[in-house]
């Protein structure tokens, strides 16, 4: 079993913390991982991208070939579309519906959401809203991860373990907030992941 994930967002949105949590969960399960990060110029408010590969077998390439990703996990709606060439025919898009507008020519958001909705396999989730609702507005990225978790070949328990390991240092409240966020994202996905 393998899962190839394209993680997308805007510099400063913290996609690397999602990658770290997935990486931790995968390592718990003794899976191989390769994760190509984007550093440097691209970080200052620009588009950012990370290729995350998880497999039982040895992984050759650090980059996912076009048409091979099983999942695009994007914390920003327009950014999810930028990497469509990587997605395989049955792959899932899990995207946050709240736009991050730091450019003058951001396209009509309705058009962007419409494009995502056209995809047979998509989850559009207002992660910021859900995070606020459960009382931990800072954990919207983990809500996103929860929403993507059903499409990643790692047992859900391993994600919980990963969160404990990564946020443990910050105290029980932060761990519990993030666990709640993970659950909230997952149950949203389970309700909405009917194929069109």
């Amino acid at each position: 079993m393998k899962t190839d994930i394209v993680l997308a967002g805007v510099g400063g949105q913290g996609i690397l913390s999602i990658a770290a949590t997935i990486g931790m969960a995968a390592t718990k399960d003794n899976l191989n991982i390769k994760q190509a990060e984007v550093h440097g110029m691209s970080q200052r408010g620009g588009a950012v991208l990370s290729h995350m590969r998880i497999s039982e077998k040895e992984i050759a390439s650090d980059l996912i070939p076009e048409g091979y990703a099983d999942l695009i996990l994007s914390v920003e709606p327009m950014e999810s579309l930028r990497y469509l060439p990587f997605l395989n025919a049955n792959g899932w898009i899990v995207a946050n519906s709240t736009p991050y507008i730091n450019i003058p020519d951001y396209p009509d958001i309705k058009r962007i959401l419409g494009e995502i909705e056209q995809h047979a396999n998509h989850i559009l989730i207002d992660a910021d809203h859900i995070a606020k609702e459960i009382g931990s507005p800072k954990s919207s990225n983990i809500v996103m991860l929860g929403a993507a978790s059903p499409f990643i070949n790692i047992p859900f328990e391993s994600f919980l373990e990963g969160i404990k390991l990564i946020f443990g240092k910050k105290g029980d409240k932060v761990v519990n907030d993030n666990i709640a966020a993970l659950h909230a994202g997952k149950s949203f996905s389970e309700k909405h992941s009917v194929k069109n």
Partner: protein
Amino acid sequence: MQKLPLLGAEAIAQGAIDGGMSGIYAYPGTPSTEITEYVQINKTAKERKIHSRWSTNEKTAMEAALGMSYAGKRAMVCMKHVGLNVAADAFMNSAITGVNGGLLVTVADDPSMHSSQNEQDSRYYGKFAMIPTLEPSNQQEAYEMAYHGFELSEKYQTPVLIRITTRLAHSRAAVGRHDVKNENKLVLPQDPKQFILLPSIARGRYKNLLGNQANFLLSSEESVYNQYFEGKDKSMGIIACGISYNYLKENFRDEDIAYPVLKIGQYPIPKSKIEKIANECNKLLILEEGYPLIEEMIKGYLANGIKVNGRLDGTLPRDGELNPTIVAKSLGLSGTKTFDIPDFLANRPPMLCQGCGHADTYNALNIALNNYGKGRVFSDIGCYTLGALPPFETIDSCVDMGASITMAKGAADAGLIPAVAFIGDSTFTHSGITGLIDAVKEKSHVTIIIADNFTTAMTGGQESSATGKIEDICQGIGVEPEHIRIFVPLKKNMDEMVRIFKEEMAYEGVSVVIPRRECIQTLAKRKKEAKKKILN
């Protein structure tokens, strides 16, 4: 020992620490920065007091590492590819002196120019200096090459170049480790004249280097990094260097590759293995991350040998980094792409952070320049280079570190008066000072803006050698004190900033303007760490 999830850059650092390194010397530069940063926070490195403080530029770093090697200890110097241009004098001559303690020169190339001005291929420098060059294909090899690289260097008394590229430097995978070796003891070179490159001695040292070429070749022929994989289908042979080997393997996944494959990770290229693959195959496909170095060598000027496909004949693009999809095409495999990027997406280029002092400075400079017209602002490399883009569009050049001051001087010499230079604090000490001496000597009509944000921000906020010293340096060089002007770049100071710029641009000599305010990213980081300290 447990495997560690490491970036390629970090794997090199860990390999060097475990291999008995006593010091790492570097100036930051993407994608090489993480090597030194890893050593700076590593426990063993701290216990051993391994030197890891930033150098002022790549040349000072290269020379300090050579000095540590002279004293018998193992040293690494690292830099991004263009940094090797700065260090080239020391680097080329270190091949002639040779080493005492093991010396590894780690250079991170940036094909596709993710954060660089060019995509030069450092393997050419290895060939130019005639020293062994290592090119890892994955994180584990990156670790091994650093770990064992010191022995290779000491065995042949030569510096060894390790060349990585952005993808490997910034990609993470699990890495296994070896036992931590002891550091070398302090010991002077056996031959007391080894490092004295007077012509009479240098000629002898050069002959020594030439004599060593056969050893370097032999080492490469026997290297575990140069592997020959037999294949039944001899219609084509594939030579894959460094990370391109992974892209090749990716395209065959669970199947064996039918063609003979020569994987290359050590240079000079293994001649007998090249002869073997050329002799048994009808044509060759050459996959190189970077310039077509091997392709050119094998093809030759007359191209009258075996048919060679690669970057030169268009089988692969001539520029940019490779990836599995590009390699698939070169193999004649059909693409697997299903979806395209919708055409209405907008680009999202990098920008100055909200509240960055460089923005206020550029706004003021744009107003002050109104009297003079466009085309006279020579800039440099740093966050402020983003001032080339809207909404500022203030600067007219960005070439190499330090070029702002010297290009402004040259343009002023030509009559473009006043000429303005825009340089950051870290870039100023890296290589702006010498240019300022030239300008002062000739009293050139230039206004030099040294944007002081107390850090090397572009590469993530490393310490800047300039902090606290800029005025003293300028005065020491001979800039008149009344023409060294300082302001705090904030919107509320707009009138003052514009006035100072106008006054100094009108002055027919060298003036230095220093907009001074801490980078808001390092400020935030500092505040967060202070808070953590109080809580602990």
